Each structure stands twice: as C-alpha cells, then as structure tokens.
C-alpha cells in the first residue's frame, strides 16, 4: 500500500473515531466500544474496496453493504458522512428526538442499505440480495458486517449453510471479532472458536486478519474477492473493542457507558495524537 494512501486511511479512521466519540458524548448513549472496533475495516471498505459513491447512493450497480451489528451504528453513520453521503453536521442529530439517526442503524439515512438492530438478521437478508444479483447476472457484490457475539443467533448458521449450498461467491461476510458481548467475553458465554475452522467446514472461503491493520485487511479482502472458487467468502477480523482510546480498549463497561466531560476530552486528545 502506498504511503499516501495509508496516511489517508489513518486520517479518515481518526476523523471517524472523533465523530463517533462526539456523537455518543452528545447523545449520552451506549455501544461506543462496538463502533470503535469496526472503524478500520469500514475505512478500507469504503476507500478501497466497495464500488459505490456518496454522489450516487442509489446507483443500481453499487456494491451493497449490510451492517448487521446495528448497535455500532455510529461507526457507519460517521463513515457515510465522511464519505460524502450526507452533510457531516447532520451527525449532531444522532439519537435526538425526531431524527432519522436511530441508535440502531436506520435505512432512512442516505447510504444505509438496511435497518438492523436485532442481531442475526443481516446475513439472511444479504444472502437474499446476493441471490437477486446472481439471478439478474449483476456483477456487484454484497458485503455483510457481523459481530462475533452476534453469531450466537441461530439464524446466521441457517444462512451460512444455505449460502454455501447455493455457492454464493458474490457474498462476502466480515466478522468483527472484538471478543466481548453484552455480559462478558464471548469465549466465556458461547465459545465460537475455532471460528475459521467452523466456517471452512461449513463451505466458506475463510481469511483471518488483524482488523486494525489496513494493509492486511485490504490484502485479505482482495484475496477473498479474487478467489476462483464458487464458495461464499468470510473475513474474520481480530479486533479490539474500544480500539483507539486507551481506557476504553477491551473494557466491557464501554459496551454501555457514555463518556463524561473529562473522558470525552481525554478521548479527543488521544485521538489527536
């Protein structure tokens, strides 16, 4: 990856994290940790992978991205704002009365393909979208972003089975493995590992990657997309919940907490450095 591209990605990820922090601070709502873990992946997707544009959010030829971990909506709202899907000042309406910016991702927001919130919905919907594309001989791809805790939901496994059975090579799932869910560590609640082995056996092409390394995320996604096999693809991304702000990283509390004045200030300082 060229140095100027990487610099651009770093700049964008920092801007998105600052937007997220400001949104949850102003609205005093939860899920900031879940948003921070997915930022670097979103940055690579929107800057380098997805064939879509803020200028034409309804372009029929665009790649579709379903954001199934809907509680981390601040990450996708901020990314879309930074990518020009709508004016950044609209983020100030996040979670405010009468706003379309719900605290679970809402498809009324330009660039959001589908509303989610209850976990385990995005992958079946993405599979339906990918099937529609294949039936119409369309070349665009469908991406679905899930969380590791979300995989507790059985509906995902129905879709994992069916997608492999249908040889949906145009479907790419990305699992944000931040290893923490609502009541603790995922490994202590329902251990999903070895996740890569499970999904390989289920008939998917699997890559596992450091979800905060732009170069590696990019390389893995390109490798998956270029696979010659008929299998659906999945990127398992090892991430850190709360990534980017020291006192939030790997802390269950930041699934719930919203920052105090002092925490907000310190967070912004850390992101600026």
């Amino acid at each position, binding site marked *: 990856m060229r140095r100027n591209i990487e610099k651009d990605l770093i700049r964008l990820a920092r801007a998105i994290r600052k937007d997220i922090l400001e949104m949850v601070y102003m609205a005093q709502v939860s899920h900031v940790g879940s948003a921070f873990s997915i930022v670097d992946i979103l940055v690579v997707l929107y800057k380098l992978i997805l064939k879509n544009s803020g200028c034409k959010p309804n372009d029929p030829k665009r790649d579709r991205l379903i954001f199934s971990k809907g509680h981390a909506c601040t990450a996708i709202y901020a990314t879309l704002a930074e990518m020009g899907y709508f004016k950044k000042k609209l983020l100030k309406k996040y979670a405010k009365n009468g706003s379309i910016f719900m605290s679970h991702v809402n498809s009324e927001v330009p660039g959001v393909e*589908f509303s989610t919130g209850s976990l385990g919905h995005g992958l*079946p919907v993405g599979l*339906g979208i990918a099937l529609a594309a294949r039936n119409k001989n369309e070349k665009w791809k469908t991406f679905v972003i899930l969380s590791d805790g979300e995989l507790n939901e059985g*509906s995902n496994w129905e879709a994992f*089975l*069916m997608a492999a059975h249908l040889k949906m090579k145009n479907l790419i799932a990305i699992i944000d493995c931040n290893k923490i869910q609502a009541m603790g560590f995922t490994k202590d609640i329902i251990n999903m590992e070895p996740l890569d082995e499970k999904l390989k056996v289920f008939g998917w092409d699997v890559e596992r990657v450091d979800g905060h390394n732009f170069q590696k995320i990019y390389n893995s996604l390109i490798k998956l997309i270029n696979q010659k096999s008929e299998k659906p693809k999945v990127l398992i991304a090892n991430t850190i919940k709360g990534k980017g702000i020291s006192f939030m990283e790997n802390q269950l509390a930041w699934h719930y907490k919203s920052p105090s004045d002092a925490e907000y200030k310190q967070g912004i300082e850390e992101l600026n450095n």
Partner: protein
Amino acid sequence: MRTTFIEKLVSGADKKTYFLIGDLGYSVVEPFIKKHPDQFLNTGIAEQNMTGMAAGLAIEGYKVFTYSIGNFNTLRCLEQIRNDICYHNLDVNIVSVGGGLAYGSLGYSHHAVQDISILGSLPNMILLLPGDPLEVEFCMKYIFKNGGPKYLRMGKKGEKCFHNNVDKIQNINCFNSKIKSKIAIISVSTMLPINFEINEILKKAGVKSNIFSCTIIDTKFKNNILTKLKKFDYIFTIEEHINNFGFGSLVKNVFENENKKILSFGLKRDLCKLTGDQIYLCKCHGINPRRIAREIRKTINT
C-alpha cells in the same frame, strides 16, 4: 384453496416473481418449479433464513412469496417479518396453508390460531383471509396488483366454492343481499362454510340473516365494515382463531361508539390437548353451527 393458489401463482408470475418454500408443498408447488425453475428455491427447514432472504430479494425488486404451514412461516420467523419485511415495507407475500385447525390431528404445533392478531398488528401488513377458492383467486389478483407485506391465510384443499364469479368479489362480500334482515353474520377465512350452515339452521327456525365474508383486511377495513354493516342491529363474527384477539375484536372496535349488539365466536385461548380432526377440534372450542345458531337466537331474543 392451495390448488387455486399455485395455479394463479404460476399464471401470474413474471420475471420479477420469486417463490421460496420452507421444505413444504409436496405435490403442490411442482407446477411453479416446472415453469419458473430459476425463480424458485427450497430454503430448507429454516424459516428465519427464508424470511430474511425474502426481504433481501424484495429490496432488489422481486415480488417474493414464502410458503409453509401457517405456524412456521409466521411465528418461527416473526421478528424477520416485523423488522426485515414490515419495517422496510417490502413486497413479501407470506402464504400459509392450514390456517386455524386445518391440520387437526397433527396437533397444537401445527395449528395457526394466533396468526391474525399477531400479523395484523404489524406495520404495513395486509391480511388476505379467503373463505373459498374463488376468494383465493381474488386475493392473488390483489397480491399481483399491490406491493408491501401481505399475509395469505388458506385452509388446505378441496374447499367448496360459495362464489360463482371472481369479478364480483370485494374485500367484504354479502352472499344473500336480497334478504332483508337485521342480523349480519360475518366470517373470515375458513369459517365461510360454517357461516352458511348457521344461516340454514336459523332459516329453519324462522330467523333471517345475511351472510358476509371478510376477505381482505387492509387500510380501508374500517370504512368497508362501516359501509357494509352499519345498517344491522346485530353483528356476529366467526373466526377459526383465538377469540377476542382477532377479527371479532377488530369489528367491535369499528362500532365501539354505536348501539349495536356484537358477539364474536372464535377459539378459546385455553389449550385443547386432545387430538382430532378439524371439525372435532372446532367443536371442542365451541365452534359448532348448532351451538352458534342457538347463541344467536338467544342474543336476538333478549
């Protein structure tokens, strides 16, 4: 009814139609597979995934049908219907067979007796509740003409026809409008034959009644009910569905401020843990033409 459904689905389908089944429909769905093999998928025994996929296909412009026995493609995947289909107002048509107690001896797991109240409370959802095969045809015309989420509730097969011309069917129908009476008996879905039986019993006892079926509950329901039933002093509703939470309560709500006697007949919420065929189980719940006729006479004589 299901034969009419598949005939009309096959003939009405175009390249924008997609038909998903939840591994049910043996010796029913084959004509569709034969004619439109690329627009059919058996999604296996996995209704959550089927319903989510239906939403995904619909958001890309397909008119999608999901097909199963009444409880499976409604209750098992209720949240997918609510969040994925209804919230996004997608053109997904949930088609169920075995409405009410039609799968009698298969037991409680296979009875669809809460579907009208549960699906009827969802945003954008239109309920299609045919009482005979021609009403199924009418509902299929409605489906092909209109978008948005819809629920088509059918019986099984071999139902008698009470209409003779599909073009004369409306959302709410009167079968004997020439009879002048103060009593309207209105049924939904599979209760149309019982409605006719009750009419015969009452006729023999010298009581005239008008037979109605309500085929479609959509946004015009309140107006339609007012137009058709306002003139009656007595209204009796019949449904093969839990009483007080379904069709009868909808009708009562329409006339809540009017001086009418309205009585609803439906299934008890209490479980019947015995097995039996549809008629036997209906009787266990008090859905018995003689008993209902008796109750009607008691009501109009007090």
